[in-house]
């Protein structure tokens, strides 16, 4: 096995996914086959290959520093699960 239950649980926590105990073994098996497949990439000799940041043969277009957007406040707040007149409201986040 290339991936274990603990790792799957940890990834689930990081991805904010709720994985039940019943599901875990199936997920471990499925993810293990994915990792195995991806592992083949490590067999390729990449010593003289330039790292590729993007598969498209193009470079980033630049934008002038100009304000083009206007307020979307009402529509954005109306789509939120919870909001008051000014703010999005979320369960208390305490640092």
């Amino acid at each position, binding site marked *: 096995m290339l991936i274990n239950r603990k790792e799957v649980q940890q990834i689930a926590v990081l991805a904010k996914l709720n994985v039940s105990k019943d599901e875990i073994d199936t997920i471990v098996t499925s993810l293990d086959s994915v990792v195995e497949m991806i592992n083949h990439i490590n067999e390729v000799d990449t010593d003289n290959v330039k790292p590729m940041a993007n598969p498209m043969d193009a470079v980033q277009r630049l934008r002038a520093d100009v304000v083009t957007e206007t307020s979307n406040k009402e529509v954005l707040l109306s789509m939120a699960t919870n909001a008051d007149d*000014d703010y999005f409201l979320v369960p208390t986040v305490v640092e």
Partner: protein
Amino acid sequence: MSNQNTTQWETVIGLEIHTQLKTKSKLFAGTNTAYGGEPNTQVSLLEAAMPGTLPVFNEKVLRYAIRFGLAVGAKVIAKESTFDRKNYFYPDSPKAYQITQLNHPIVEHGELVIQDDKGNDKTIRINRAHIEEDAGKSIHDKYTQYSAIDLNRCGTPLIEIVSEPDLSSAKEAVRYMRGIHTIVTHLGICDGNLQEGSFRCDANVSIRPVGQKELGTRTELKNINSFRFVEKAINIEIKRQIKLLESGGTVTQETRLYDADKNETRPMRSKEEANDYRYFPDPDLLPVVIDQAYIDNEKQFIPEFPAQKIIRYTQDLKLKPDDATTIAHDKELSEYFDAAVKQLGKAKPKVAANMILGEFSALLNANDAKVEDNNISPEQFAELLEALAAGTISHKIAKVVMEKIWGTDSTAAQIIDKEGLAQVSDTGELETIVKEIIKNNPSQFEAYKGGDMKMFNYFVGQVMKQTRGRANPAQVKTLLEEL
């Protein structure tokens, strides 16, 4: 100090400084970045993380980052830089990742010279400066059961400036932070406003026994937004770590928050979630490719920095080192000074410096005004100094004239003329006044003749009072000595 513990500790500090760039629009969308807007009115669909939106890179940010690289003598200003995603969930970042530059940052390997605690020059290496986006703001004190989120700041461009762990004390850290602040404000790429969060600092702090090569376990102090707090936070954290190690404990690598009210640091995030950001290249953004000419073109925007200014002020203009330093470090003040000095004929730059740091600064404070408000233009200021140098007015009257010029278009000459403030240098007129005062104060005059030097000052004071400060002090002195 305990006698049992003989270990000498040394401190190792590295700083990460988040510098908000002074652009009109955000990093990846044409959304207004102005501070203090009504909540959530400066949020485009991109910052709200609506599906289908794509980031488009703001060229100003690239140019500003290059200028910073040039200013710190960076060995690398990348001709090809790329963006990565740093993944984490937090309500002030709707898309659940921050776009940053992990693998190919725009700037690498710069340096900044500061003074160490003994006053010697010390080079602090800058590992990198990368472009990234700021998050929104969470407001915790508005509701008891909710945090309120304002996304106006979300997507505002930052460069994060990462130093090597070359700093050895809290004071050095502050000097380094001030040094970077000076650079970004003089470059004009950041407004440098610490209160508004435009310039914030995280400090990585560790200690090790003197002589030990390997670094101790570090803690990261987050989001310190004043020079004073940086020093206090680091010192309190050093104390905590020493106490911990000397009592047999170990330092845990963690993120800690400095609480200025309690003057303590405390852990911030749970350990297992820390440092697992699952970075990967952002597929929405292509590599940013520039050539040498593009980089060279930014050199014209690199100004004269305080260190160079200080040399010019002390050597060419003969200012006192302290005055030169004070003026040079204040961008607006030094620009004002330079503009005024350019207009001077007979008057000395040294007098201009004295006046700017003395009466002029006092006047600014009294009116709660800034240099750049231009209540007295550099030209008006220079004319005033010329009148002083020509002996038309005394130093004392110069202050009065300055107050009258404030906020008007009048020249010093016009004010002096209108208010009758020209210095009385007519010996005949002064002699009459002096004689009159002597006549009215016979006993004081006797005491003066008897050698009481306090009375000399008394008479000078009386003459000044009589002439409303317009008497030429040197002449009054000569007259009194002759009588």
